[in-house]
């Protein structure tokens, strides 16, 4: 009886449905725990787009030390990252690469737009080679203003992102 129901053709569908059922059952009690795990191990991609990378580097230094807030230094592989920090101006040459990097990352993934240039184009709004903000190519979770933002501002931005993750639903 059971053997007739489960055959290779509908096996994947069944497993998928089972997954959905499990996620729904677990979301209430375990969602908080899963999100808690995500918060403290955010891996940023090592993709510098412009000069804000200097302040991003300074944030990893001993004085600001973002690692104590659960942001790990940007030295991981793309495939194990879940955070893109767009570090400044995105030019027309960089934009397709940024989107490609974003597409290659596994879900869930978050984006912080760092600096005035990444938000609206900033100082370079009238340049011929600069995009007016990155939200046209990738969805942004948190905007961190400044030109360049101080490392403290970046830390605050990531804490806002962590707050956002904490309140989000899994699955």
């Amino acid at each position, binding site marked *: 009886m059971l053997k007739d129901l489960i055959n290779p053709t509908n096996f994947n569908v069944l497993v998928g449905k089972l997954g959905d059922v499990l996620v729904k059952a677990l979301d209430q009690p375990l969602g908080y725990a899963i999100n808690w795990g995500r918060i403290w191990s955010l891996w940023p991609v090592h993709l510098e787009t412009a000069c804000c990378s200097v302040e991003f580097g300074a944030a990893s230094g001993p004085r600001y030390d973002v690692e104590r807030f659960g942001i790990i230094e940007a030295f991981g592989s793309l495939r194990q990252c879940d955070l893109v920090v767009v570090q400044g101006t995105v030019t*027309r*040459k960089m934009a397709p690469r940024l989107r490609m990097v974003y597409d290659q990352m596994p879900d869930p993934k978050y984006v912080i737009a760092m600096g005035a240039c990444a938000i609206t184009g900033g100082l370079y709004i*009238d340049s011929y*080679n600069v995009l007016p903000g990155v939200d046209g190519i990738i969805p942004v979770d948190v905007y961190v203003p400044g030109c360049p933002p101080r490392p403290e501002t970046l830390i605050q931005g990531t804490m806002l992102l962590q707050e956002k993750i904490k309140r989000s639903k899994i699955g």
Partner: protein
Amino acid sequence: MSNKGGSNLNDTKANSSTKIEPSNAQPEIKQDNVLTLEKSIVDKLVSEFGDKIKIAYVKPLRVRVEVDSSDVIKVASFIKETLLFDHAESVAGTDYPKGNYIEVVYHLGSYTRDELAAHVLALATRTSRDNSSLPSLVNIYKSVEYHERETFEMLGVYFEGHPRNDRFLLPEDWADIPPMRKEFRIKGR
């Protein structure tokens, strides 16, 4: 090319006890206020080329020479071989729509002659805006290679004899006119 590049671990005699010895002998650089060196440079150029070249100005430490595009190779090789200006610092192209020409200025400096260390010789040449083409100096000054390539894409000046007149800084899908031309307007301005 005397490029050794790769190091073999067995050959390397790296040893933390080896004392690092920075060099100490210092270069001697003299300067004067009566433009003697500048004038001697100009005199040599004028006696060699006569009215083929035009001396635009002689300022302290700066000399500007204007030549026709057909003579630029001869003048550049003379400047390198005889006057010993051995490298190019920058290649600046400027668009002049009013005079219908594009000017390309090579700023040449010298590392080998100590008394020329402070001097910059500007070698300027012109081409028309419609059919912009200049002989490349890459065989004389290797250091102009990327500068000329940048000038090609920013102003559309084709450098004959350059190994790659190619896209460099702009995106691959750039389909507009070269951006440093004056008729290219940036948005909102």
